[in-house]
């Protein structure tokens, strides 16, 4: 039920004149340079760009893991720059989901506990029927009692996806979630993410450098040198590759 590119959907996250500068003076690096971007709700957005173009920085700032040098970030109606560390933490716990490239799981906890981690941290009860449906979607049923060291890389990422989905957060951020996986495991993970957006109206932002991964998204934002240089709706692997070649040339 992806909305068409022309209809304006509600905004899940927004960056306004977002600028991030590392260092001072001559050695300053402008990781983000006056970026304006809206992440629409219920859509799957991919961020692409060459290495060092500021993809991770943008994602970290949107997710409240990092602060901007100037400009502001909104999650829903909340201006992140007004929040204390504690409020930011609670926001991440309740309103945002994360999937990292690796080291996604706490080794001392079982898969099930890792999935429920944000709820456990908040001392909340997990919605059991939703939990069961997420677990069955990602196909972890018989692995729930295992610890991360007993799971394959693909299974570990499935647990990470399940954790992000289980909270039904307003928005999920994924930083190269398939970067360490083979192509079969990658397409499984990307499939789960795609169906979460299509079937459950989840909002997902994913950083990737693989055109095949970007093809799962509804829209691709292209970054270069800290600025958004282009966007593409309903991408395919070929169209993304073409576009990247243009930049490369």
């Amino acid at each position, binding site marked *: 039920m992806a909305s068409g590119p022309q209809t304006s959907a509600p905004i899940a996250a927004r960056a306004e004149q977002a600028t991030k500068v590392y260092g001072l003076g001559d050695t300053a690096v402008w990781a983000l340079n006056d970026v304006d971007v809206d992440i629409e709700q219920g859509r799957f957005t991919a961020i692409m760009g060459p290495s060092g173009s500021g993809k991770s920085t943008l994602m970290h700032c949107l997710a409240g893991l990092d602060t901007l040098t100037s400009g502001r970030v909104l999650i829903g109606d909340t201006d992140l720059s007004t929040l204390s560390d*504690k409020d930011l*933490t609670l926001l991440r*716990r309740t309103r945002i989901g994360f999937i990292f490239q690796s080291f996604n799981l*706490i*080794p*001392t906890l079982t898969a099930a506990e890792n999935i429920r981690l944000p709820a456990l941290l908040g001392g909340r009860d997990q919605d059991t029927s939703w939990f069961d449906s997420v677990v069955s979607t990602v196909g972890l049923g018989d692995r729930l009692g295992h610890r991360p060291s007993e799971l394959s890389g693909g299974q570990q990422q499935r647990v990470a996806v399940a954790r992000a989905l289980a909270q039904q957060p307003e928005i999920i951020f994924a930083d190269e979630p398939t970067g360490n996986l083979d192509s079969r495991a990658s397409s499984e993970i990307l499939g789960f993410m795609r169906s979460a957006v299509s079937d459950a109206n989840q909002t997902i932002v994913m950083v990737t450098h693989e055109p095949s991964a970007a093809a799962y998204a509804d829209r691709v934002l292209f970054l270069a040198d800290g600025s958004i240089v282009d966007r593409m709706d309903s991408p395919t692997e070929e169209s993304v590759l073409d576009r990247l070649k243009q930049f490369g040339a």
Partner: protein
Amino acid sequence: MIKVALKNLRGHKLRTLFTAFAIALGVGFMAGTYVLTDTISSAFDELFSEANAGIDAVVQGAEPFESSAIETGGQRPDIDPAIADLVAGVDGVAVAEPGVFGFAYLLDEEGSPYVSGGAPSFGANWTGTETAGFTIVRGEAPEGPTQVMIDEATADRAGLDVGDEATVQTLTGTFPVEIVSIGRFGESGSLVGSAFVLMDTRSAIDLFTPNGLIQSVYVIAEPGLSEQDMVDRIAPVLPDGIEVVTAEESSEESQALFDQILGFFNTFLTAVGLVSLAAGAFLIYNTFGIIIGQRNRELALLRALGAGRRQVLASVLAESVVIGLIASLLGLVGGIALAFLLINVIAAIGIDLPSTTPVVALRTIVLAMAVGTAITVLSSLAPALRASRIAPMAALRETATERPSRSIVRLVIGLAILALGVFVMVRSVADGEAGWAAASIVAIFAGVVVLGPFIVPTVVAGLAAPARLLGFAGRLGGDNARRNPRRSAGTAASLMLAVTIITFIAVNLFSFTASFSAATDKYLKADLEVQSGQVPILGQSAVEALAALPEVRAATGVQRGQVQIDGTVRPVYAVTASAVLDIFDLQGVEGDLAGMGTDGIAIDRVTAEEQGLAIGDTVEVLFPDSTEATLTVAAIYEDGGIIAQNSDGHYLIDVERFTAHFGANNQFMARIDVRGVDGVDLAQLRAAVEAELEAFPTATVLDKDELRDQAQNQVLQVLGFLFVLLGLALVIGALGVTITLALSVFERTHEIGLLRAVGTTRGQLGVAVLVESIVLTLLGTVLGLVIGIVGAVAVVRSQADLIDTLQVSVPWGFLVLVVVIAVGIGVAASIVPGWRAARMDVLEAVSAE
């Protein structure tokens, strides 16, 4: 490779410093002990020579056998004052003066000593010559039985001066005096804070010594004669049992006696230092283990790049040698500083040492450096060997975490040691071998250390269970304490050592105090006990005065000395034979103890059987004054523990016999036990006794309840003291927990970043580290408590045959205090690592590859 090691040290300054600090504490304590005792010893050396400065020879009673200075304080017999005249007549003798040396205390109007706090107060004679060791600062020489000279330091401290009046307390009672002069001892002005009261020789003999004898004759030679010339000339005229030594030998003898006592002190403190070092060794072993685990990949890479096993081994060992050297040096410097501080503290409380320059002997330096470095290197040997066995392949593996060491070999060895310990313990309790029971604790401790990784998961799960009340963060902390059993076990080991020792001593002390109190209840038939306290003033005259009261049925003092019986040096106890059975229940007596008189001796059953003695047999007894007497075994009693207050009360003689053969300074009694006539009111008896003791204002009178309280209080004091000393090992344990946590936090950077990203607050991370820290400290504490209690109970129980009122008393309150302190240590140890974890940069953590 050595360069790699040094780079590692520099790269982890904080960790290196912490590790070094653990060893430095132990080394510092040892070095400090040596510097302190060496300094005190050299100060006394100086004093003893100063005391004999103007003198060439000393005539004194000869000891027929060697006695233990620690137990008796020296048993040199007194001599007749007439010997001074005899010596004065020897050709070449310029001056020969009697030397009187006893105890004499200056009391204020209330009857409390002017100088208190443990320093003794001596009574001596003013001779007007250099033999006195004093010079007059102001006033006139004392003359007659009411005039005294006091030393300058005491005068200053007490605010006394020429013309003031005071009371002097001696063994025979009190008498009023007038201070007519202030004198200065030697050059330094004070004999390490002890006070002096001087009278003219005649009065000193009359008032300071109960037997009218003197302690020595000080001799000054005519010009041109050496010390040895004096000895050669005087020796031939002396009767048997009296000897002459050069002034130098006399100083050396005083010094030797003192050093014997100091040596005891030194051994005790060195043992405490060694405990700290052992705790430090555990810490080093564990820290190196963790570090090498974390460096697995780096070391494997080195191997892959062509570094040999030996090179890896050498690199790790080089690191430990450097840490060891730094730590030892730190410890040495710290120890010297500590000793210097203590010497100044001692001086501040009134015990002046003539020189406050710390004596740093070469032996101290060598020992500190060698012990510190050796312990560090030895503790890192096992981790270093492990490092050298890392396969180059490990560099290519994905994960680089420490492999849990729970091998079968470890299990078998651990169980074997533990089983051996338990076996020896059970046997020694059955056979009454306290020494073996104590030794078995070492094996049990070692067994638990080796088995640590197997024990940890279960124990930690139990300890961490309550932490769940703190929510999920508490649960995370508990899990973290359990995730690496070897690491947790190694971290807990230092604390376990300290707690085991503290618990062991506490349970023993409490048990023996309880046993002693039970014995007092059961076998002490006295109603009151008079104690001389810090001021030794009770003598046989006080016993006789008390016995003569109409309210009193019987009274006896207990004196202790050493004699030679049938060729062997033995402790004897002197009592008033006619009174002893009214005061003490010896649990059955064969023969006539009350009527044994001066020619009889009473022996306990066990000793009598050992020596094959029966009633009517005789023993040859050699007394300190060289008198040989044949005493008849008049009685054999079942158990004299109540008299001796320990288990060596084997021989009893009558006080009259004792008094005749022991010097004036051996005649003091620590206690006099008094029993009222039947039906007398306790308060009335007490009033009568206290009235009679008016001449002994410093004596205290205690009833049985008060005696019990006193014993309890003394135990608590000893425990408090031990706690302070062993606190060092506790600090090292806390340090170990901090280092482990810091390394673990560092190692879990990703995990912490992830936790923060998905919504863990800083507070929650802090709680997790806090819980982990407390669980680790409790792990060591609980294991230590268990081993300590089991061991102490075994040692106490093994003496069931010796002490029939034996009681096992576990001081639960004290043990709860230990647990509370452990939790406190856990909290303190978590502060730095917890802060680091909470403040960790989330981004850096999640993006670190």
